[in-house]
C-alpha cells in the first residue's frame, strides 16, 4: 500500500510483538488493542492495559488464495487463516512453513516474524506476524 511510513510505524508494537490489551474491568483480552472494551464501555475507560499475546492458537477456518492482490501476486497460491489465540482474540494471518494442502481446521499454530509486503523496489519493507505449525505444544 502506498502510504506514509508512519502508518506502519504506529503499528510496530502489534505487528512485531503482538501487543494487545486487557480490560481492567472484565479482564477480556483484545488484539489489536481497543480504545475501550465493547462489553464494559465506560467502565473500561482509562483501564485498558497493554497485554502481550504468547503467539499460539488454533485454526478455526482458512482459505487458499489463488487470485491475490497486486502485492501478493508472486506468492499464490498461499493459505490464510483465522486463528483463535489461546488468550481469546481471533487474528487473520498467512500460514507458512507448511504445504498448503496440509492446512486444516483445528490445527495448532504459532506466530513467526516475517516480511509481509514492500512498497516497490526502493520503498519501505513491512514486517509482521505469520503463522507456522506449532513445533512443541
Amino acid at each position, binding site marked *: 500500500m502506498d502510504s506514509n511510513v508512519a502508518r506502519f510505524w504506529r503499528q510496530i508494537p502489534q505487528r512485531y510483538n503482538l501487543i494487545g490489551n486487557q480490560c481492567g474491568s472484565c479482564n477480556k483480552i483484545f488484539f*489489536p488493542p481497543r480504545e475501550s472494551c465493547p462489553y464494559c464501555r465506560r467502565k473500561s475507560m482509562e483501564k485498558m492495559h497493554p497485554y502481550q499475546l504468547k503467539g499460539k492458537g488454533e485454526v478455526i477456518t482458512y*482459505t487458499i488464495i489463488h487470485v491475490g*492482490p497486486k502485492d501478493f501476486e508472486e506468492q499464490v497460491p498461499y493459505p490464510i487463516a483465522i486463528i483463535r489465540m489461546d488468550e481469546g482474540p481471533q487474528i*487473520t*494471518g498467512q500460514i507458512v512453513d507448511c504445504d498448503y494442502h496440509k492446512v486444516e481446521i483445528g490445527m495448532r499454530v504459532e506466530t513467526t516474524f516475517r516480511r509481509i509486503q514492500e512498497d516497490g523496489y526502493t520503498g519501505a519493507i513491512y514486517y509482521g506476524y*505469520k503463522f507456522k505449525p506449532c513445533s512443541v505444544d
Partner: protein
Amino acid sequence: MRDVAVIGVGLTKFGELWDKSFRQLISEAGAKAILDSGIEGKDIDAMYVGSMSSGRFVGQEHIGALVADTSGFSFMHIPATRVEGACASGGLAFREGYFSIASGMNDIVVVGGIEKMNDVGGSSATETLATAADQEWEAFFGVTFPGLYAMIALRHMHEYGTTKEQLAQVAVKNHKNGALNPYAQYQKEITIEQAMNSTMVAYPLGLMDCSPVTDGAASVVLCAAEKARQYCQKPIKIIGSGQGSDTLALHSRRDICTLDATVHAANMAYKQAKINPKDIDLAEVHDCFTIAEICAIEDLGFVKKGEGGKAVENKITTLDGTMPVNTSGGLKSKGHPVGATGVAQIVEIVTQLRGEAGRRQVKDARIGLTHNVGGSGATCVVHLLEAV
C-alpha cells in the same frame, strides 16, 4: 411517522458498459425512474445517491451534487447527498430517502445507486473492493474479499456439512433467473459442472461462486403514501426498514458463519412491519458469493441456521419454489455494480409486486424483502415492501 411508497423505478443495463460514463449511467437510471413515476423535476424535494467508491473507481468524489447537476437539476438547487456503506451504499441511500419522507420533512425524493467499476483494471477493482475489509488487520496480510467469504464457506462446511455442490446450485439457480432478465450482465444459464469446476479464486470458492465486476445504475422515486396515488397507479409501500452493524473484521465476529448485522436488521424490519419470515413471498438477497446467499436465507430466518445448503438443494429458493430468492439473477448473474445493488434490489421487488416481471414473475407476490450487505457483513440493510 408517515407511510412512504415507491412510485417509480429505473435501471440501466448491467455489464461492461465501455461506451457509457458514470454521469450517463446515473442520469439514465434517474430519468427512467422519474418518467416511470409521473412526477416532474419541480416536485423533487431531495436526492440521495449511494456509491461505494466513486473516488477510486472514476476519481470523482462529491457526487451528490454531481448527480443533481448531470441530471439537469443544478439550477433548482435540490439538496443532494451521497451515502456510503461499501456494497450496502445503495440500500442505505434508500433508507435515508425513506426517513426523510417518513419524518415529514420531504414529500418526494429520488434515490439513486451507481458504480462504474470497469474504468480501472481488474486488480485495481479488486483492491478497491478490499477497502471494505479491515485494511490494517485483514487486507494488510494478503486476504482478498473472495478470501473472506471463502473462510465463511469453509467454516460453514465444517460446522453444518454444507457442500461445494450446494454452493454451485446457488450459482446455477441465479443464472437461470438472470437468463430471464433483460437487464442482467449474464443472461445465460450455466451447468452444475461448470459451476463446480470453475477456476479456483479462493478455496473453496471458484470463479462461478463470485459475483462479477459490473457497471450500472439504479434509481427509484419515493413519495409520501398519502400522495402516491396522485402520480402512480400501483404504489408499493415500504412496510419495514432495518439496519445493523458489526465488527469491520470478519475474525472479530461472534460467529464466523452468522452475519449478526443481518439478523439485527431483519428483526428490526419484521418488528416494524409486524410480520414474520413466512409472510414473505420473495426476496432479493446479497449473493456477492454463493455462500453469502446460503448465510442470508438462514440469517433472515427463512430456514434454520445450518440448513441453507439443504434448502438450496431442495429447490426451495427457485423461481417456482416456496421462497423464491434472487428472481433478478442476483448479484451473481444480474451483476454487482456495488453502490447500485441495494437500489436495484428494490427495483426488482417493486417490478415483481406490480406484476410486471414478465417471464420471471412470481405468482401472486404481495410482500417482498431486500437484503443488502456491506463488506463481509459489517453493514446490513433490510427492507420490506408490500403491494397495496
